[in-house]
């Protein structure tokens, strides 16, 4: 797998609403590479999802640069981006007889022909992803029948089938019970350590982030921002401030 270098320079994120730009957060600087699990920490509404959506090109940045392997991300064609970045959002998908395997095979869309006909190789990859995420017993279930934990795993498996170096996750542990949260982070950790992925995940489960993440992006009020290593983050002023109520 190729090496990934994602650089964020002076990025300003937000929304464009009828000529008005609504800035959500600015001056974000960070750089990521393979084998990292980066946690996004901050209050609701501070811009964590917006940042993830901006990196995935689902919305426009307001200013600054996002460089992936030294190429500006908006210069890439959609199909190329889909081979570099996958994203798991908070929205639920079900209905239309979609099964776990159907969902995961959608991850092959950037690679299949114009009729989305899966080849031998695609089936091998899909099966690997099913196994890796522990979904073997559930692969023929309908999405509507899955628990929240299994649904998250299925979405991650779809991202894996997309074979991207970078995987973005928007609050993957929301709605999950404690065991499922633990399981999910173990899975993410494996993907980073064994499969050398780069994963950026927003989460409010600080303890799990402390245990499993390698880096943290901390979003504070008044546009305060830090990109720090998880080791020793407890001594960081902004981290202390943002998580004060959590640890009190």
């Amino acid at each position, binding site marked *: 797998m190729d090496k990934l270098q994602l650089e964020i320079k002076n990025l300003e994120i937000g929304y464009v609403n009828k000529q008005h730009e609504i800035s959500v957060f600015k001056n974000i600087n960070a750089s990521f590479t393979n084998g990292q699990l980066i946690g996004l920490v901050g209050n609701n509404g501070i811009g964590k999802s917006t940042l993830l959506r901006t990196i995935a090109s*689902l919305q426009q940045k307001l200013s600054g640069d996002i460089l992936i392997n030294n190429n500006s991300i908006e210069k890439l064609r*959609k199909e190329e981006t889909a081979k570099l970045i996958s994203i798991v959002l908070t929205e639920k998908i079900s209905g239309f007889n979609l099964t776990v395997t159907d969902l995961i095979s959608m991850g092959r869309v950037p690679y299949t022909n114009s009729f989305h006909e899966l080849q031998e190789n695609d089936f091998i990859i899909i099966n690997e992803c099913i196994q890796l995420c522990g979904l073997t017993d559930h692969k023929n279930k309908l999405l509507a*029948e899955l628990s929240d934990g299994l649904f998250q795993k299925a979405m991650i498996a779809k991202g894996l089938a997309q074979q991207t170096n970078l995987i973005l996750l928007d609050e993957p542990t929301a709605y999950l019970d404690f065991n499922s949260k633990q399981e999910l982070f173990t899975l993410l950790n494996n993907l980073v350590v064994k499969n050398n992925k780069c994963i950026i995940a927003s989460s409010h489960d600080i303890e799990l982030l402390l245990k499993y993440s390698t880096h943290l992006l901390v979003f504070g009020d008044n546009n305060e921002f830090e990109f720090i290593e998880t080791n020793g983050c407890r001594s960081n002023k902004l981290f202390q401030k943002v998580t004060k109520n959590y640890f009190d």
Partner: protein
Amino acid sequence: MKKKSKHIIFLFGLLIVAFLLNILLAGSSILKLDELNFDNYIFTHIRLTKALTAILCGICLPLAGQILQVLFRNPLAGPYVLGISSSASLFVGIVIMVFNTFGLMGHLFFSKAAIVIAAFCGSLLCTFIILFVAKKITSNVFLLLIGLMLGQIFGALQSFTEYFSSDKSLREFVMWGFGALGNTNYFDLTIFSSLVVVLVIALFFLTKPFQVFLLGENYANALGIDFKKYRVYFIVISSLFTALATAFCGPIAFVGLSVPIFSRLIFKTSDQRFQLTACLFLGAIIILFCDMIGYLILPDRIIPINVITTLFGSPFVIYLLFKTKNW
């Protein structure tokens, strides 16, 4: 894979049976097998044209319905949710009223062509409004609501027209609203079928983005499928399907909404290439059978196709829904 091919072959066989039975039974008298020759006027110019129209109509409406249900990720969507048939109805209502006022309705060919053209123009007008809105508005729910509102507006305008219509116009308009398969000749069928073929081919070349649309806008974009671009294509195709069916057969109820649901419930697959093919066959089969039932129930009365499709189809879909836990 093999199972799916078997299903398609089965549906194809069923379609042939339905087609033959329809030609033999769906009419004022039952045809004998030796009457099936092209010298027989009833066979060539009445039964055959009607059965072919039934097939084309049965292809158009379920495909339009399936496209919109996937686009809005909502099984309540049907060919009529975007207001398309309402605007077609309004135009037809106006044409019937105006023509009757000026005494033009007597010329059969002229008036029939006028109704077909009016229905088609009405459908296209609404399609253009929807496309214009779709370019401005990202939210699918808003688009759906705007479609429903447009339908209401056209419906109200139509009531307004009806209020000022003569009894004769009203009757003609109500008859048109029942839906009819027997109003086409070979000239109509040539236009109808060639357009349907073009649209079906176009749709089958778009099955990949269509498949991805099951995941909604965000995931489609994240998989490299330009949602906004393909949304326009799908709206155009489904609107044209609806426009064609409404223009040639009037507003045929039920099949557009329920055949896609029906197909999902019995075949239980999310593979859209199969689902679209199944919808296309099922729609044609169901319309052929419903038309036939309409002729057979009462000895010397023909029951309108819309009554049959709804009365016989709905309970069956309800039954399937009771049997299904999830889909």
